[in-house]
C-alpha cells in the first residue's frame, strides 16, 4: 500500500499532466499512459483472461479518457477514473463475446485464446485445466453481477483500487461502496456455489 504522501504527490503530478494536455500539450498524455498502462492492462486482462484483448480494450480506454479528459473532476487519483472506464469496457467486451476456453495441450501460456493457460502448474496439465475452468467460472460470475455490485467488485479486485478511491471515482459515499462490495461478494459466492451457466 502506498503511503499517503506518495499518493498525494502522484496525484499532483497527474493533475499537472492533465492540465498540460488540456492546455494543448498532447505529448503530456504520454506521461499519463506510461504511468497507468500496466495497471489498466492488468485490470482488463483479469476480466477478459486474454492479454491481447486486454491491450485492445486498454487502448480504447485511454482514447476515451483522452477524448473526455475535460470531464475529469479531479476527485481522487486519475488512475481510478481511468480504471473505471477500462473496467466498464472490459466487462462489456466479456459479456459480448462467447465464453470459450482455449486450452493449450502443451501447458504453456496461450496468447491467442480467450483464456490462456498459465505456465503448467507443477507440470500437471489436469491441474492447469481445472484452474483455467475455475477462473473462467469466476469471470463469468463477476460479469453476471448486477450493477453497481459488479463495478465495485471489479474495481476493488481487478483494478486493485481502494474503497476510498472507488468512492471518489464513482461519486458515492464510502459506506455505500462498502455495502455494495459486501453484497457483491455475497452474490458472487452464491453464484459460484450454484455454478454459473456459461
Amino acid at each position, binding site marked *: 500500500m502506498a503511503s499517503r504522501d506518495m499518493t498525494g504527490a502522484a496525484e499532483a503530478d497527474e493533475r499537472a499532466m492533465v492540465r498540460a494536455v488540456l492546455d494543448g500539450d498532447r505529448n503530456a498524455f504520454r506521461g499519463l499512459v506510461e504511468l497507468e498502462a500496466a495497471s489498466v492492462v492488468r485490470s482488463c486482462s483479469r476480466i477478459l483472461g486474454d492479454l491481447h484483448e486486454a491491450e485492445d480494450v486498454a487502448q480504447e480506454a485511454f482514447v476515451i479518457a483522452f477524448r473526455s479528459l475535460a470531464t475529469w*473532476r479531479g476527485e481522487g487519483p486519475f488512475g481510478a477514473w481511468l480504471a473505471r472506464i477500462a473496467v466498464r469496457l472490459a466487462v462489456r467486451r466479456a459479456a459480448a463475446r462467447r465464453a470459450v476456453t482455449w486450452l493449450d495441450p502443451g501447458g504453456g501460456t496461450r496468447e491467442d485464446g480467450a483464456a490462456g493457460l498459465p505456465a503448467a502448474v507443477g507440470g500437471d496439465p489436469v491441474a492447469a485445466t481445472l484452474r483455467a475452468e*475455475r477462473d473462467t467460472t469466476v469471470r463469468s460470475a463477476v460479469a453476471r453481477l448486477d450493477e453497481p455490485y459488479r463495478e465495485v467488485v471489479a474495481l476493488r479486485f481487478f483494478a486493485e483500487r481502494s474503497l476510498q478511491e472507488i468512492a471518489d471515482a464513482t461519486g458515492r459515499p464510502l459506506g455505500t461502496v462498502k455495502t455494495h462490495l459486501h453484497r457483491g461478494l455475497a452474490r458472487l459466492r452464491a453464484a459460484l456455489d450454484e455454478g454459473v451457466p456459461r
Partner: protein
Amino acid sequence: MTADRGRFRSDELSGADEPVVGDADMARALSAARALEGLTERSPSDPGADFVDRVMAAVEREPAPSATAALAVVRGRPRLGTFAASVRAAWALAFAGVGRPIGARAAALGYVLVVAVLGASLTGAAVYGAAGALGLFDDRSPVPSEPAPTVDPSVGPTLEPSVMPTPSGSPGPTVEPSATTEPDKTGAPSASPGASGAPSASPGASGAPTSDPSGTPETSASPDPSDSPEPSDTPDPSGSGGSGPG
C-alpha cells in the same frame, strides 16, 4: 498508483451502510474475495513494449481535448445518449470542476444554460401545442370576452346580475299565471294546460296551486335554465325572458 494492493480483509467492510451480520456472512464474503484474488494472481498482466506507442498513435488521430470536449462528443456521434452525457459532463465541469481553467468552466456553464433554455422553450411550446390540440383554449374562449369587464373590479358586480337574470327570465311567464288561475275557475285542470298550450311551463312556475301534478314538476323544471346559464339550451322559457332582461 493503487493505494491498496493487499489482500481483502474483513475490516474493509466495517462502516458499511448495511453492516455485515454474523461470521457466516463474513466467511462467504471472504471466500468470494479469495476466489477473485486467486484469479488475479494467475492472469497475464504485462503489456507489450510498444503498448504506449500504440496508444499515442491512436490518440494522435483524436481532436485535442478542450473545455468543449463534451460538445465534440456530440458532434462525433449525435445521439440522445451522448447528448445527455455531454450535458452531464458539462454540468460536472461547471459546478464541480474546482481547480479547472475558468474558461473551461465558463464554457461548460454556457453550454448547460443554452441547453436549459432550449429545453424550457421546447417544453413550453409542446405544452402550449398540446393544450391547443386538446381544445383547452377553445373552452375558455367565451371567457376572454368577459375579461374586459373583469379588468374593472367595480364592473364585476354588475356582471353577476347578467347571470342571474336568466333564471329570473321565468318571471316573464309569471305574468301568464293569471291564465292558469283561470282554469281553476273552470275547474278543468287538464284543460287548462291544454288551453295554455306551449306556455304550460309557465303555469308550473307560478300557478302551481291548482295543477298539483303538472305544477310541481314544472317548478323543478324552472331551475333548468338556471342550471344551464346559457339561454340557448332552453329556448322556450329563458330564451325570451333571459335575453330580455339581460
